[in-house]
């Protein structure tokens, strides 16, 4: 169940839209923050908070790949390997993450610190190779640079 404060946060989101349904995507992010991922409980909690059918919440939550659909590490790396990034060496970065952190596609580090999701284009071709770390954007990546950046996320 969601705490009073979180419910209030969802109420505030709801107030920004004409109907509760419109608040579904942001509310799912809030629940994900609280539950760690889109678990059955998280989706149920959102359905109750917005008085929406649980089926509808589930259909929406599972449609979007940017939600966490299983328990994941504290920090989520979303690395692009689409054309531009690939040409500029994203594959090397994939290898680097694997060798240095033991991270593979959809995997999580043993200490629960990082999870990796390989993405199809995050709109950063001009700074390829690029990644999102949680909601922070990083471009022009190299193995060295990525190591440094990750060091900043405990």
């Amino acid at each position: 169940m969601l705490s009073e404060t979180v419910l209030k946060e969802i109420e505030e989101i709801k107030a920004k839209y004409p109907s509760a349904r419109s608040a579904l995507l942001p509310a799912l992010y809030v629940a994900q923050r609280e539950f760690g991922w889109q678990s059955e409980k998280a989706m149920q909690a959102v359905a109750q908070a917005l008085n929406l059918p649980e089926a509808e919440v589930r259909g929406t939550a599972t449609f979007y790949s940017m939600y966490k659909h299983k328990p994941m590490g504290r920090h989520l790396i979303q690395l692009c390997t689409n054309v531009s990034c690939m040409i500029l060496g994203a594959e090397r970065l994939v290898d680097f993450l694997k060798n240095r952190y033991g991270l593979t596609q959809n995997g999580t580090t043993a200490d629960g610190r990082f999870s990796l999701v390989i993405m199809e284009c995050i709109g950063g071709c001009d700074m390829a190779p690029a990644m999102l770390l949680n909601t922070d954007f990083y471009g022009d990546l190299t193995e060295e640079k990525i190591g440094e950046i990750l060091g900043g996320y405990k």
Partner: protein
Amino acid sequence: MITITINGKEIKLEKPVTVLEAARANGIKIPALCAHEQLEKYGGCRLCLVEVEKMPRLQTSCTLTVADGMVIKTESENITKARRGVLEFLLINHPLDCPVCDKAGECELQDLVSKYGASAGRFKEEKRKTPESHEDRILARNMERCILCTRCVRMCKDVQGASALTIVERGGKSRMEPFSRESFNCEYCGNCHTVCPVGAILARPNIHNYRPWQIDREVETVCPYCGVGCSFILQVRDESIKRTIPKLGLGLNNGLLCSRGRWGYDFANNPERLKYPLIRKNGKLEQSSWDEALGLIVNKLQTIKNTQGGKAIAGIASPRCTNEDNYVFQKFLRTACQTNNIDSVSRLGFASAQRYFEDILGQGITANMIAGLKNSDVIIVLGGDPTAVNPILGLSVRAAARNGAKIVVIGNAKGLERFKTLKVTPPVFKEADVLEAVLSEIAKVKGPRGEKPAIDKRINELAGKYRTPEISGFNELKELLLSGKSVSIVLGTDIVQRTNGHKALFAVAGITYLLEARLYLLSERANEQGLIDMGCLPDALPGGRPLNINDFRKRFETSWGSSIPSDNGLTLMEIVDASRDKKIKALYVMGENPAFNIPNNPYVKEALSALEFLVVQDIFLTETAEIAHVVLPALSWSEKDGTYTNLERRIQRLRKAVNAPSGMEDWKIISEVSNRMGCKMQYRGTEEIIDEIADISPLYKGLTYDEITKGNCLWPYKGEPLRGVISEIPAAPEKSDDYKGDFYLVPEKLLFHSGTLSRRSSSLNRICPEPSLKIGEGHAQRLGLKDGDNVKIHASDGNLSIKISTDRYIKDNLVFISNNFEGRGVFSLLRYSLDPVTKAPGLEGCEIKIEKA
């Protein structure tokens, strides 16, 4: 006017519809797997492709709106090629297991593939594998066969309003899914199953037990369960009902059904059906011949009538029997038995309220078309949850909400929680006070209307003494009601079952009157209205004609060739009291189970056991039949002809679909007894009975089966409704109790059961196998209880072990148990005192303690 050409044929259209609709309306077939008459456009399957001149590509006819001058071709080589391609794609993951699929023979995909080809696919990868799931209580899901047309999802969300289905994930992984087993809020209507074009959603009761082409006959009839009166086709094989099929365009349900109508038919196939007459000998019921049983009945009734007079005899009619049965029943009691002691369990709610409203507002006040609900802008729902009591009517309330109507719920109505605009929770058992306050507030703006002086006068009296209740939402409630231009009131019977129920009824009548609202009375049994119209009342003859007015009575006496006692008879609860006091010696029960269906079961049983002679006609050995002296096997609704009158007062035809192995029509048994008692009744069939009714009842004048079949038998038919209304509103001394207890027990009306009939339906038992105590989630938590826990409840005299089911929408301290399950009905614990005006039992104030078991 829009003119288009389809396949060379010129078509003129009033309104801009889709090309698909235009084609269909003109008998031109276009294949369509995702489009459906009842559902929103989707445009997902791409099978309805057509060629439109001047448009570069093939167009989906289900989403394309016609424009003047359009020239359309629905078949061509190009189109066939495209459709074949689409089908090939659809078959990529389809298992092509038609030989073992129950849909084969009525599958839209199978038909299309056999027409357009693509029998072999070129796709080399593995097909998706998902085993058929039988985890659900009543529906099987085969996701390998699913073509993702989303008809089921749209049906469940937009029409049924349950929103139990969704498509999860996306792309190649997408599939239709119930949310999860625990939180799955499926209403088991099966409407998803109706619209699924393939064998992906199947009915478990029918898996592998017959093929569509093996059906012996199909008979159109009406649902036996509630007062909505949905139409469906009964499919029969080997004298057993296989399915009930709703059809687009058939009846007021237009292709939809609820769980009871869909699955509940199988009680008729139950092997426990009574097969022969029973007579109590040495304290035990033993098999007898019809002749012996009827002889005994005649003998007993004659003796009691001759020695004690007709007043010592009473009859309980049945809202599950046809108009014809009920007409013959009351005629028999009034003539052969010389008694007006006739009533039914409808007195518990519907009949009491209906009579009250007609007395003060005029006959026909509740005869409103269910379809009209959709045109309302404000709907007030109180006294019950229409989505459980009268589910198909409930769907109209939900549909109105989607059209923008404001739904105001007073009390608890779980099925409308996502559709309501406002919910007001009156203090327990104080609905009447809240309603009187609402009425008085409305009267300030709208009253007096001047049309019915008695009502205006009473409203005026109330205005002087009402108090604004301290409940949240009261002002909004008042404002909403006043804002309505087309107001409907949907009234359930819960508020009738109060000792001061008549006060709430007056307030509702007053609101109806001032707002010129449409009034809908929820009706739990199929023929409650019919039974009233047939004169199964202690104070009225057929057509609602008051018994104690000589002119009316004389007409019936002449026609029936017999005198009719002139005093009003006893109402249901009074019959029970008089039986216990041995004033009534003989009771004739037709198709009813009073020992279970009347509150305070122990008392009722004691009263019925005191009878000198109890006759029961039924299809099962009910609690009442068990204590009877003679039990006669009757026929089920599927085995007889006749008519039902639904809650909107539409008369509809029941048709015999199955030949019963044993038993006799209720009317036939009654006429046989009547004949032997010297009151001749020589009907050769139900048609002759309806002819007599049409001849004698001023209301059903000129009615014939032909006309009923045409479906236009709507109030006021060609009849003569009674115009007069009473000049004085009946009143009773005020009673005011305080309800400060922890929990109060009240009856619950379940969506999945109805009376004691549905207990014999194995499908409905599969959906809802046991009773539960419904309690607000907050209260349960406070008691340290969670959903599914077993508890023991203690009432003033009696207790019950039961599991609880929590409901987060219940905020007051009412707790609910239904009255369906053997030995565990709420009426075994509830006691009552009569509403002096309506003579309905007041069930308020049953305080209980709940203890963890």
